[in-house]
């Protein structure tokens, strides 16, 4: 049970969040109240590692008295995730790779090697010029220093690079013996493009000029209408109106990125490798809320398939159904549903980028609100979600299954079709949001629980 057979990096996908404060965000939990399941999740401070800047070792763990998302001086605290190395041992169990496990295999922390590669390919995606790719690579390391992720790009000004944060192999200690790496994302700054003869062209919006507008085409780039390779949606970059309805890039870039964290260890003459993924995105500005459909839902479906399986219990299905309702409530709570419904608000018709506008612009569908305008005040919509939850819990919500939008109904823009749930929101295909098929199947299972109870002696067997 001590021989290391294989490695894993967990979590397999970790989200970092941008911010320029020196101290990363503290740890916390977001707990639901079983008595008020649709109430806001309660955020509570949780044990937080303190890392010594010099040694790279964890020196202690503290639970802060209160949560603060900024440093109080106008900077956001970055969310800097830890990635742990786990070992598959010869007893077929995954366990954390620790000093003890290393020692039992005749190894030391210095035998663990890391490499982090991240990229920001936003510009290249638009210009199709591979010289616009921005990439950073730490190369292999096994020390405990902070390794800067400096994004290099052939079309950058001479000697310039894009700071994409840093990665650090934390020094395992007897008190904190696990093998882990921390990814600290960048500050969240906006950078610019300059011509070589005007390298510091004044622009208060950017912190620095990195891109050489003489070499590459990003500054002044305009998506060409009708090009089927364009991003969907197109023109999603900072720009200004140009001739013939074009949208001309200002040449701005940011310090978001995503990439891979590799780990390598030679055990008994065998080189074991593993990798995890990281990304740096904006802060979660409502940290007690969860999006209705998340990246985890995508990956869950990809792992488990689009339908509930024999491995899914009715209890799990109910939990999924409640979580979907909770997330829907959290979104509604923070969304002006009158505006998103396409109501006339403050005398303005077509007031925002809604599905109502989108359906008309894309397909020529009649412009009209989705729900009756009188029904969509936030208070009323929240009450509706509460009623659905009560019906689900009491086993009287089989109708709920029929109002969920199926994935192949996103083009149903009839009055009834647009009212299906989730309503008022856009999905990744540009039409109204549909949940993943696995989410829908599990919610339907829960919603129809009363029917199963009548039809089967074993209500806990889904199908």
């Amino acid at each position, binding site marked *: 049970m001590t021989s290391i057979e294989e490695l894993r990096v967990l979590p397999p996908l970790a989200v970092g969040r941008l911010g320029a404060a020196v101290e990363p965000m503290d740890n916390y939990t977001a707990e639901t109240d079983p008595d008020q399941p649709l109430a806001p999740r309660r955020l509570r401070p949780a044990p937080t590692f303190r890392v010594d800047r010099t040694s790279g070792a964890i020196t202690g763990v503290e639970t802060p008295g209160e949560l603060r998302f900024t440093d109080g001086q106008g900077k956001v605290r970055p969310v800097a995730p830890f990635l742990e190395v786990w070992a598959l041992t010869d007893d077929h169990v995954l366990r954390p790779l620790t000093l003890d496990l290393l020692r039992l295999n005749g190894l030391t922390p210095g035998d663990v090697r890391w490499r982090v590669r991240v990229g920001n390919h936003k*510009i290249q995606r638009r210009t199709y010029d591979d010289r616009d790719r921005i990439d950073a690579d730490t190369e292999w390391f096994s020390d405990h220093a902070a390794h800067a992720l400096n994004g290099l790009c052939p079309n950058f000004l001479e000697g310039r690079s894009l700071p994409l944060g840093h990665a650090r192999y934390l020094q395992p200690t007897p008190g904190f013996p696990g093998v882990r790496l921390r990814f600290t994302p960048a500050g969240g700054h906006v950078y610019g493009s300059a011509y070589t003869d005007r390298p510091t062209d004044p622009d208060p919006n950017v912190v620095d000029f990195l891109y050489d507008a003489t070499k590459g085409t990003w500054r002044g780039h305009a998506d060409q209408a009708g090009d089927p390779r364009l991003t969907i949606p197109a023109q999603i970059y900072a720009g200004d109106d140009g001739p013939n309805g074009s949208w001309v890039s200002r040449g701005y870039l940011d310090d978001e990125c995503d990439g891979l964290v590799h780990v390598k260890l030679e055990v008994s003459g065998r080189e074991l490798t593993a990798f995890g993924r990281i990304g740096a995105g904006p802060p979660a500005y409502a940290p007690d809320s969860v999006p209705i459909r998340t990246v985890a839902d995508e990956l869950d479906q990809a792992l488990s398939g689009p339908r509930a399986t024999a491995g899914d219990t009715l209890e799990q299905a109910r939990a999924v159904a409640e979580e979907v309702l909770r997330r829907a409530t959290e979104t509604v709570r923070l969304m002006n549903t009158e*505006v998103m419904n396409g109501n006339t608000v403050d005398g303005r018709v077509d007031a925002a980028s809604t599905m109502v506008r989108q359906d008309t612009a894309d397909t020529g569908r009649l412009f009209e609100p989705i729900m009756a305008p009188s029904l969509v*005040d936030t208070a009323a919509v929240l009450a509706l979600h509460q009623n659905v939850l009560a019906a689900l819990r009491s086993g009287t919500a089989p109708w709920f299954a029929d109002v969920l939008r199926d994935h192949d109904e996103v083009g149903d823009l009839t009055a009834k079709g647009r009212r299906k749930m989730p309503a008022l929101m856009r999905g990744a295909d540009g039409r109204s949001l549909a949940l993943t098929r696995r989410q829908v199947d599990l919610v339907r299972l829960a919603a129809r629980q009363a029917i199963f109870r009548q039809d089967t002696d074993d209500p806990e067997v889904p199908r």
Partner: protein
Amino acid sequence: MSDDHIDPMNLTAQLHYRAAGNPPSTLPESAISNAFPGLEFDIRNIWRRLLVGIELHESDNYVVAADPGHERLVGRRLLTVAGHDVIGGLVGPTRPGAGSWPLTTPTNPDGVTMLEWSNSLADVLAEHVGRSVPCLFTSGPAPNPVGKPAALPDPGFEVVELEVRPLFARSAETGDPLAVIAEEMAGPGDLTRGLCSPWQNDYRECACYYWAASRPDYVNVEDTAAGTSTGNHWFAKDREPRVYVLDGRDDSRLVSYDDLFQDWQGRLRFIVGGNDAPEHLEAEQEDR
């Protein structure tokens, strides 16, 4: 799963594993996927290379590149994979009181729409990894959307057999799937390439509040005497009066593009329980 053991076959537990010290906002369940294109990741990108030999547009059935032997498929549109449609019909009314019928336009004469890869290819991934499956393409370049033929064979369409690539990496030891997206499906930079540049622009540009968990809209909401609600736009520079300023993109009462580019950290407030986080209220009091 216990704190120090995980069943190596339990991929769901590994996917959702929250490492010690990591807050919930580090987890993939904190990242939106009802993405157009997204905020943390443009997760649509994981599907581009599912079919060996071709590269698909991240959110369209258009073939953008191909390996040797499949070059002729570049520029064509993919309509079905292993019998599963990747497009659906568009239907709805165009006049008040009128019935619904196919919604066609000059650039979409068949009135069809793409279905999200993650749902339309879910069966393919679940049932056909490592095997070749019939894929229905247009028989020539198709810059605009195309609908399915009424029947096959049809000279406007061609069936090509393509292998389905695993989405997840495999264990070198056992060959079993792991919980991490395979490197050949998405390299560094691939999961963010479709996002807005810079991301701050998207927060202002897209006056559509689908992403409330990351980008709230309606905050500090309270009931009115009439039984309805009122509150602030998240972008409101001042929280008093507590009225919702409709986004006009150029209303000086709201944070502007330039404000975000220059000082998003100072301008945007964290929202807890639907209201400005206490630290922002403290800062306001100190400013007075």
